C-alpha cells in the first residue's frame, strides 16, 4: 500500500498508548484473576470491579511495581509520590460512572524509547506514564449503529492499564509503528505484558500538520490500524489545507473496515472529565517500591544486543534481530550452549525465524515443537556433514508441522548424508560401468558428466550432493 514512509517535518504525531499489564495475576483494585480470556463473560467479577455501592478499591501493589518497572525501562522519572484521581463520565462499560486514573500526579514523567529509522537512531521522548483501570467490554450484535442493544462483559473491568504518552515528536506513520513495535518488545522483556492477547494494546493518536488543528484518533486496536489511520488522516488533512480549508481541532474514530477516520466530536463538544483525587485511596509513596523493583529489572534489548555480540562473537546483524524478541534470544542462547554460536545465530535468525513467520508462529511455538537441544543436535549433524543443508530445513519443517524425534525423522526420510568414501566408491563404480560416457567426456562432450552424476544420485536415492559428486568425478576422470 502507498503509505507515506519518508519523514515529513510538517507532520506532527503524538501517541497515547494504553497497555494492559496482563501478565499480572489480579486486577488493579481487587483480587479478581486476570486469566479471563477463555472464560464466560462476567465470571471474573466481584463487588469492587462491578462498582457495587459500598465496595472500595485497594491498590494492587504488584501492579504498581510492574508500572514502576516499565517506567524505569523507559528511562522515565518515577515520582516520589503519586495519586489516583477519578475521571468522571457516563458510559455503560464504566460500572462506577467514573474511571480511576491519574491526573496531575502521574506515576512517572519523561523518558524515551530509541527507534531505528532509515535516517538512523532516534529518541522518541515521553511526556508521562500513568496507571488506570480498564473499563468493561461492550459487544454489539451486528454493527454499533444498527444493533438493538449491546452486551457488557465486566471481566475486563479493572484490568491494570498503563497509559504511556509520547511528546509530539514523530513525523510519519512509519515512525509511529516503529515506536509501537519497540515499546512492545520492551514490555515483553519486562514480563509484564503479553501482546498476543486481545485488546492488550490500544492507541489514541494525535496528528496535525503545521498550520492546522490537532486531531485525535481514538482507540485504535492494532499496530497496522495505527499506521493506516495516520496515513489516511495525514492525506485528509493535506487535502483540506491544499484546498485552502482549515483543519478543525476534533476527535475522530478509526473505521477499521473501511480504513478511514470519521468525526466523533468537535472541540466544543469535548468532555469535561471533572477530575478530582479518588477519596477512597491514599497517595502512594514510591521510594520503597522503587528500591524493590530496581533489583529485579531484567536485561533490556540494547544491553542484550551488546552482550550477545561480546559473549558469542556473533555479528551485529544477527544480534540486532535476535533481541527483537526476548524468547528468540533465549532460544538462541540455549542452542548456542551446544553448538558453534555463529552457526546457531545464522540458523535461528535466517531459517527458523522464517519458518515460524511463515506459519504465523513465534519462538514460544518453537520451544514446544523443536526444543533448543534438538535444534542444536540437528546443527551438529550438519556441522559433521551427516546431513545436508536441505535436509536440515526439511527436518525443521517436519518438526514444526508434525513433531517427532529428530533421529527418527532423519532415518525414516533417509536424510543422513552419504559418507565421502561411499560417494567416491560409487563414482569409481559409475566410471567402470559406463565406459561410453567416460569416452564421450574425454572426447570433449562435457555433458556426459551429468550422466555419471545421475548414476551416483540414483544409487544414493538423491542423498548425494550433486555439485560435490561432479567435483569428485571430474577429478577422477582428469587423473
Amino acid at each position, binding site marked *: 500500500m502507498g503509505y507515506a514512509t519518508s519523514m515529513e517535518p510538517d507532520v506532527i504525531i503524538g501517541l497515547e498508548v494504553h497497555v494492559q499489564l496482563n501478565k499480572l495475576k489480579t486486577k488493579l483494585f481487587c483480587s479478581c484473576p486476570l486469566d479471563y480470556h477463555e472464560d464466560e463473560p462476567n465470571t471474573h467479577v466481584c*463487588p469492587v470491579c*462491578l*462498582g*457495587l*455501592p*459500598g*465496595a*472500595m*478499591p*485497594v*491498590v494492587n501493589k504488584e501492579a504498581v511495581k510492574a508500572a514502576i518497572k516499565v517506567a524505569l525501562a523507559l528511562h522515565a522519572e518515577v515520582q516520589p509520590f503519586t495519586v489516583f484521581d*477519578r475521571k*468522571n463520565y*457516563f*458510559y*455503560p462499560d464504566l*460500572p*462506577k*460512572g*467514573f474511571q480511576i486514573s491519574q491526573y496531575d500526579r502521574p506515576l512517572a514523567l519523561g523518558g524515551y524509547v530509541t527507534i531505528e529509522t532509515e535516517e538512523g537512531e532516534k529518541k522518541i521522548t515521553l511526556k508521562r506514564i500513568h496507571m488506570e483501570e480498564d473499563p468493561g467490554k461492550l459487544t454489539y450484535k451486528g454493527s454499533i449503529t444498527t444493533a*438493538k*442493544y449491546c452486551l*457488557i462483559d465486566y471481566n475486563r473491568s479493572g484490568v491494570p492499564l498503563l497509559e504511556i504518552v509520547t511528546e509530539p515528536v514523530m513525523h510519519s506513520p512509519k515512525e509511529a509503528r516503529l515506536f509501537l513495535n519497540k515499546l512492545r518488545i520492551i514490555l515483553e522483556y519486562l514480563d509484564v505484558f503479553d501482546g498476543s492477547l486481545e485488546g492488550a494494546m490500544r492507541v489514541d493518536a494525535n496528528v496535525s500538520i503545521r498550520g492546522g488543528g490537532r486531531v485525535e484518533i481514538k482507540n485504535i486496536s492494532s499496530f497496522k490500524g495505527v499506521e493506516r489511520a495516520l496515513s489516511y488522516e495525514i492525506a485528509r488533512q493535506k487535502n483540506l489545507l491544499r484546498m485552502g480549508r482549515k483543519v478543525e481541532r476534533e476527535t475522530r474514530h478509526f473505521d477499521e473496515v473501511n480504513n478511514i477516520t470519521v468525526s466523533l466530536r468537535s472541540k466544543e463538544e469535548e468532555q*469535561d472529565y*471533572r*477530575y*478530582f483525587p479518588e*477519596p*477512597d*485511596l*491514599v497517595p502512594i509513596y514510591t521510594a520503597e517500591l522503587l528500591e524493590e523493583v530496581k533489583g529485579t529489572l531484567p536485561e533490556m534489548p540494547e544491553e542484550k544486543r551488546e552482550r550477545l555480540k561480546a559473549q558469542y562473537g556473533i555479528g551485529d546483524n544477527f544480534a540486532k534481530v535476535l533481541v527483537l524478541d526476548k524468547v528468540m534470544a533465549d532460544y538462541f542462547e540455549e542452542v548456542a550452549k551446544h553448538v558453534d554460536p555463529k552457526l546457531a545465530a545464522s540458523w535461528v535468525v535466517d531459517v527458523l525465524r522464517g519458518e515460524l513467520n511463515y506459519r504465523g508462529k513465534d519462538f514460544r511455538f518453537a520451544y514446544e515443537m523443536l526444543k533448543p537441544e534438538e535444534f542444536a543436535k540437528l546443527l551438529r549433524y550438519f556441522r559433521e556433514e551427516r546431513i545436508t543443508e536441505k535436509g536440515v530445513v526439511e527436518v525443521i519443517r517436519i518438526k514444526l508441522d508434525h513433531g517427532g524425534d529428530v533421529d527418527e525423522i532423519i532415518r525414516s526420510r533417509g536424510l543422513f548424508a552419504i559418507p565421502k568414501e561411499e560417494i567416491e566408491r560409487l563414482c569409481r563404480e559409475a566410471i567402470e560401468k559406463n565406459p561410453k560416457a567416460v569416452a564421450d567426456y574425454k572426447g570433449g562432450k562435457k555433458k556426459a558428466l551429468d550422466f555419471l552424476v545421475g548414476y551416483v544420485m540414483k544409487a544414493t536415492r538423491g542423498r548425494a550432493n550433486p555439485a560435490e559428486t561432479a567435483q569428485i568425478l571430474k577429478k577422477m576422470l582428469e587423473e
Partner: protein
Amino acid sequence: MITVKEWKERLESESCYDLISELFDRIERSKLNAFITLNKDEALRLAEEFDRGKLKGKLAGIPVAVKDNISTKGLRTTCASKMLHDYVPPFDAHVVERLRQEGAIIIGKTNMDEFAMGTTTETSFFGVVRNPFDLERVAGGSSGGSGACLGGEESVLALGSDTGGSIRCPASFCGVVGLKPTYGLVSRYGLIPYANSLEQIGPMACCVEDCALLLEVIAGRDWRDSTNAGREFEFRPVDRKFRVGVIREMGGNDDVMGKFEEVVNDIVRPNFEVVEVSMPSFMFALPAYYIIAMSEASSNLARYDGVRYGYALEKLDTWTRYFSKVRAEGFGEEVKRRIMLGTYALSAGYYGKYYLKALKARTLVKRDFERALKDCDVLIAPTMPALPFRIGELADPLTMYKMDVNTVPINLAGVPALSIPIGFVKGLPVGMQIIGRFFEENTIFSFALKIEEALRDEVQRKGVA
C-alpha cells in the same frame, strides 16, 4: 430508653426470643417510622440461638439497628432512595461482619435521609421519621431512624453514619448518645458513600458506656478500606481534671444556649478547668463542607444508571436517554440538587474557584482544631444550634444547610466528636458535642461519662423526669 445493662437484666428473667418479639411488636405499632426494612426472621432465629446458649460474643443477644446505607448481605439496603428500593447487597459491610461475630441481633435497617443527604430525614423515599419526644417534630438526620429507634425504645444499640453531623444531629434531637469517630478508625467498607473523605460509620446508644462498647466492636483494622488506620479501640475510663475548651464561634439560639451555658456553669466549670477557644476558620467551614461533600457525591452517585442493579425501566432506549430517565425518576429533589451543585463545582473553569478553595479552607479548619486541642483535652459546643424542628419547618435548603454549622467542621478536620444529651428545653432534648484529638475517643468517653454522672445527680436534684 434501654441500656445494655438493663437489657441484660431482662434477659435473666425472660427469654431473648420473647424480648425480641416484644420489640418487633412495639416497632410494628410505632408511629416513628424509624425502620425501612425489618430483619424479623433472622433476628428471631438468632434470639432462639441465644436462648439455647449458642450465640456468643460481646453483644450476644443484644438488638442492634443498622442504618440503611450500610450493606447487609441478603438484607435489602435502600439508602432510603427509590433508586435502590429493591437492592439486596451480596456482601456485608465490615461493621456488620463485626456485629455478627460478636453475637449481635440485627433487627432491621433504619430510615434516613436519601443517600444521607439531609438534616431532618425528610428526604427519605420511605417517609419522614418522627421525634420520639414530639411526633410533630423531626428526629434529625440523616441517621434519623437510628436516633429515633433508640429514643423510642425500639432498639438498644444502633449504627449511624456521619458525613457532616448525621450521627450527632439525630443523637441530639432524640436525646441519645452518638459518636462520629476519628476518620479512619472504623472501616467504611460496605458503607454506601455520600462523601468518602468526610464520613465515618459510628455507634449510637442510650448511654456513654454503651456507645463505647459498640465502638469497641466496630472499630479496627480492615485492609479493604485503604483509609483505615488499622487501630483497635478499647474503652479504659480515665479520671483526671480535663482541660476543656469552649468554642466561642459555635453557638445556637436562646433555647439551646441557655441550656448549654447552664451545663457549662453548673457542671463543667466546678469540676474541670475551662478555657474559651477561638476558631477563626469557623466561617469557612460550612461552604467548604458543602462544596467537598457535593463534589464527591456527584461522582459517587454516577454509578446509579439502572443497568446492573437498582431502579430500572421496562423499556429500552438509547444509552443517554435511558440513564437520564432512570436518574430523573430514581433520585429525589435534594439528591439531584447536590449532584448538580457538585458537578458544577468540579467543572473545568470552576474547579479552582470552588473545589480547590474548599480544600484550602479544610486545611485551615484542621489546623484550628489541632491548635485548640494542643491546649485542651476536649472542646465542647452545642451539637445543634436549635431544638428539633417541626416537620416541614425547614422548607428552604439553605436554611437547612446552615443547621449543620456546628457539626461539619469536625468532619472537615477528621477529629472525633461525641454528642450527649444534657437536658430538656420545652420538653425537647438538647445535645452537647465533645470534640477530642485524633484517635482519643477514650478521653472523650471518659469526660462524657463524668458529665453523664453529674447530670444524673442534677436531674435528680431538680426533680425533672
